[in-house]
């Protein structure tokens, strides 16, 4: 197995860190598109009350888009928050606990979001 720490670590090679780099960008683009789609719908004429606001998310395509974007958000946040732990938290045990807590946090939030969307 190749060494990925210390002075003899492998710093070059196929796909070294590419997956995280790419997934963070792909998920970012998805969220940016979602933001534009939502803002366009909000800028449509008419008073913005409960009916119109809930109506935006009641449409099936918007529900699915919101779900996809929420999963993208969780994935994106996982890569980013894991980077923070890897940069600042050196004790391996504590880092593992924080990483597990991050996954629990994000999966929990995703579940809640799914519940909110499909109750609509």
């Amino acid at each position, binding site marked *: 197995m190749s060494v990925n720490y210390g002075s003899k670590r492998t710093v070059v090679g196929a796909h070294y860190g590419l997956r995280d780099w790419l997934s963070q*960008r792909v998920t970012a683009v998805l969220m*940016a598109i979602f933001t534009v789609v939502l803002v366009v719908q909000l800028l449509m004429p008419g008073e913005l009350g*409960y009916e119109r*606001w809930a109506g935006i998310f009641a449409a099936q395509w918007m529900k699915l888009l919101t779900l996809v974007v929420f999963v993208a958000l969780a994935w994106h946040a996982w890569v980013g928050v894991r980077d923070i732990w890897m940069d600042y938290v050196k004790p391996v045990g504590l880092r593992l606990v924080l990483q597990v807590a991050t996954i629990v*946090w994000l999966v929990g939030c995703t579940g*809640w979001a799914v519940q*909110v969307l499909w109750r609509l």
Partner: protein
Amino acid sequence: MAEMSRQRPVARPGTMRLVDAVKYRLPVAGWVSILHRVSGGLMFVLLPFVIWLFDLSVSSEASYDGFTSVFAAGVGPFAPWFLKLVCLALIWAYLHHFIAGVRHLWMDATHSVSKSQGSFSARLTLLVGVLLTLALGAKLFALY
């Protein structure tokens, strides 16, 4: 002489600690970078708060009234101004993270990574983020 060169320098810097980082003067692109991280961390921590607000706002007519009263009457021990301030912080975090992210994508796509371009786009990122935050914040605090 060969013996001499093998000796270690006296004041060898050790591993850099997080507190050492504050001793450096950050260039403007460095500020955008660390604020990208700070804003991302903030949104991660406050994600349940955002989902809770979303839940209130879409679930029913009655919960929507609850959503508006969050900003009119507050919730539990939290005053409306405090909750608005938290939302303002989230608005800034979203905008800064968004614009700094687009800046990243722009640099990835165009390879325009000269010092002057980086500095300019970093200033633009900070400025546009703050200006849009002020515009939306004025709306949030009902100034217009």
